[in-house]
């Protein structure tokens, strides 16, 4: 007997308890539902709740401990029936069924809200254990300080994290150098210069960029930007012959980040009070003087927060670098050379047939945990700055 069948039986019992609860309540009140404390429906739901909850809990417990024997099944059904009988006996005209139902619903709401905590805990725990396993097999100093990344299937791999970190930071830097000025200027133009009609066209246009999946950017890097940079910059300048490069991934990631930076900046600029603009314009400042000397300094903390969030996005981005950056772990300054990132290596070590006892696989979890830690710090910092900024003008 599978769990599905037991669930079906419980559903039938629940349906029965729904009608029994209602009938019992009305009978108690001598057929006049106005004499009841709560609406008849509340008695129905209160009965269902009391009937189902203990049985479902027991079922889950048995399922997890793999003890779902026929005897266990029987116990679940008996528990449900017993709970039904008890809850029916409890029904009197003064029984506060609504309070019972609402307590139950509130518990469900809290449970749903706790999924967020459970997810974070799941993320941390899932990576923590495997990371510890990894460091049992591989010296942590080697991991954090070695400048060589050379996994070998026959063992004796060198798994230094530094080249990956360098690639990640280099690509993110290029992306930000491109995206921050463009995004910021775009936001300024839309907020302070553009008329309503231009904004109605341009704003959705820029926002479309935000809705495009990263795999599309990745393909764009692979088939268009990479060859373009290789043929017109890298080869004529003698800097390399690879389509995949730090520059390719960085530029395309920069395009992806434009709407991110511009919409965050737009929000932040919009929060600067109009009275400051009026004050500056009233003194005879031009618009650009007002923006540079009053609005931007006032919005600076918020913009710094936005840039940090963008940096966190760039560091955690996967598909663009998988398709645009290359797979070679290198410590080089040449932006037209192929390099690799933390996320690329997580993908390459964890796809295909993985042996979860080998350090070459487990290293991905250590990389993941490091990535999580870096982005978490950036996010917490950025969110704190942005929140503080918002409070200032509320």
């Amino acid at each position: 007997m599978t769990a599905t069948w037991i669930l079906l039986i419980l559903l039938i019992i629940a349906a029965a308890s729904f009608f029994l609860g209602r009938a019992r309540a009305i009978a108690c009140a001598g057929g006049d539902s106005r004499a009841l404390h709560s609406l008849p429906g509340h008695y129905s739901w209160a009965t269902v709740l009391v009937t189902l909850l203990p049985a479902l809990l027991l079922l889950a417990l048995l399922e997890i401990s793999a003890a779902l024997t026929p005897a266990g099944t029987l116990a679940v059904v008996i528990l449900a029936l017993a709970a039904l009988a008890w809850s029916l006996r409890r029904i009197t005209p003064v029984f506060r069924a609504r309070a019972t139902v609402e307590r139950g619903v509130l518990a469900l709401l809290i449970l749903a809200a706790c999924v967020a905590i459970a997810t974070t805990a799941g993320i941390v725990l899932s990576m923590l254990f495997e990371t510890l396993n990894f460091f049992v097999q591989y010296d942590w100093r080697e991991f954090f300080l070695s400048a060589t990344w050379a996994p070998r299937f026959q063992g004796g791999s060198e798994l230094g994290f530094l080249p990956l970190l360098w690639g990640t930071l280099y690509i993110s830097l290029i992306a930000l150098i491109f995206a921050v000025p463009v995004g910021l200027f775009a936001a300024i133009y839309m907020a302070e210069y553009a008329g309503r009609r231009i904004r109605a066209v341009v704003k959705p246009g820029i926002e479309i960029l935000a809705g495009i999946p990263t795999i599309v950017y990745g393909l764009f890097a692979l088939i268009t930007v990479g060859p373009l940079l290789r043929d017109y910059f890298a080869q004529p300048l003698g800097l390399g012959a690879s389509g995949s490069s730090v520059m390719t991934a960085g530029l395309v990631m920069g395009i992806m980040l434009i709407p991110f930076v511009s919409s965050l900046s737009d929000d932040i600029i919009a929060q600067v009070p109009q009275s400051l603009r009026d004050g500056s314009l009233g003194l005879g400042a031009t618009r650009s003087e007002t923006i540079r000397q009053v609005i931007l300094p006032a919005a600076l903390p918020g913009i710094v927060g936005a840039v940090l969030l963008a940096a966190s996005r760039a560091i955690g981005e996967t598909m663009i670098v998988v398709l645009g950056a290359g797979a070679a772990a290198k410590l080089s300054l040449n932006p037209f050379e192929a390099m690799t990132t933390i996320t690329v290596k997580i993908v390459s070590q964890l796809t295909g047939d993985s042996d979860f006892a080998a350090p070459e696989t487990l290293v991905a979890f250590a990389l993941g945990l490091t990535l999580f830690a870096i982005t978490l710090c950036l996010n917490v910092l950025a969110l704190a700055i942005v929140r503080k900024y918002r409070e200032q003008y509320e």
Partner: protein
Amino acid sequence: MSDQAAARPTSLLNRGDHTARRHAAEARFRACGLGAILIGLAALAMLLTSVLGSGLGAFRQTYIHLPIHLDAAALDKSGDRDPEVLKKVTTIGYRKVIDAALVEAVAQAGIVIPGLTEDDSAGIISREAPAQVRDMALSDPDLIGETIQVRILADGRIDGYLKGRVSAESAARDSNVSLAQLQLADAMVERGLLSLDFNAAFLTAPDASDQRPEAAGLGVAILGSAYMMLIVLALALPIGVAASIYLEEFAPKNRLTDLIEVNVANLAAVPSIVFGILGLAIFINFAGLPQSAPVVGGLVLTLMTLPTIIIATRASLKAVPPSIREAALGLGASRMQAVFHHVLPLAAPGILTGAILGLAQALGETAPLLLIGMVAFVREYPGAPPEGFFDPASALPVQIFNWTQRADPAFVERASGAIIVLLAFLLVMNAAAILLRRRFERRW
């Protein structure tokens, strides 16, 4: 400056150099802003033309039109059309029949190409074609012994030639196609034996192996994505709305609430690949769910989408003015009744809009799916739900990634075509969200 009143009244008609410089700086600044907008729009235009340009070809496919005599002597030696016996004839048997049919058709059409061997002629037929014909014969055994007019796939190189991807120069460097074959293709096009038709199979057929890009389709990927979206919708929407109601309407100011708030805000910014690691470690390695299954993908995407839905739902709950709640409470409703009877219905359009946008985000997500095994080569359609949720499947964005990793350039066209399909889905979803917002937008 020392005495402000000295020069009064000053004329405004004297414009100094300083003012001119300031206006020049203003113009430069404004041009920078306009430049930034143009860069953004140009990037969008480049991206779309690049994808459309290389992807539209995937919706058309080169087919060979042939009469084939399904020779009973070769395909059904027993002669009683027993399906079990028919199945024993492999595609190799059908291949011979088709090759012969092509050679004959070419000869009948009077096409003579110097240096073209029979093997060369047969080489323009896709490796997938025998399976096509075999399926036809197995589904209707009475066809055996008859001569039927069929439409079979041409080889990827020939398809590329008709689409301009393969040329005489590139063929000279390519061992998989000869100049004679291209001349044959030209002659066949002239006589109506070869043509570019609409490629419906691109949307319905499963993936195909490296050697037959012409047969690769998105059927399994679209189905897999649809399954995952169903799971995301069924889980993320109720959980997200319930969590938002608690946080926005009931949560007291305490540590648990703060903890949840911080978690939601941070989860929204956690890199997607990290969710993939979570899925691999918890759902596959710990809970023992199967790899490549839509159920795992759906669960991972649910966790990823939750913060988006929670943030959108809370915003629309917040937009319902407190006076509505007070009115309900004033009539003696409980807080729960006030929320479920009055606030939630008023916030529903905003919640749905947020849910659609969350789904759109989940539909395009690739990285976490790579880690839970959805890159595997899957040719079988998953079964009907709910069992089908546990069958191996692919997903649209992963299929795109998969095709970018293949050697044959014909797969780039397939990947770009798949992106057009993906973007079309996203366009529909976003348009629905915008319509919903326009239709039900309420200003208090």
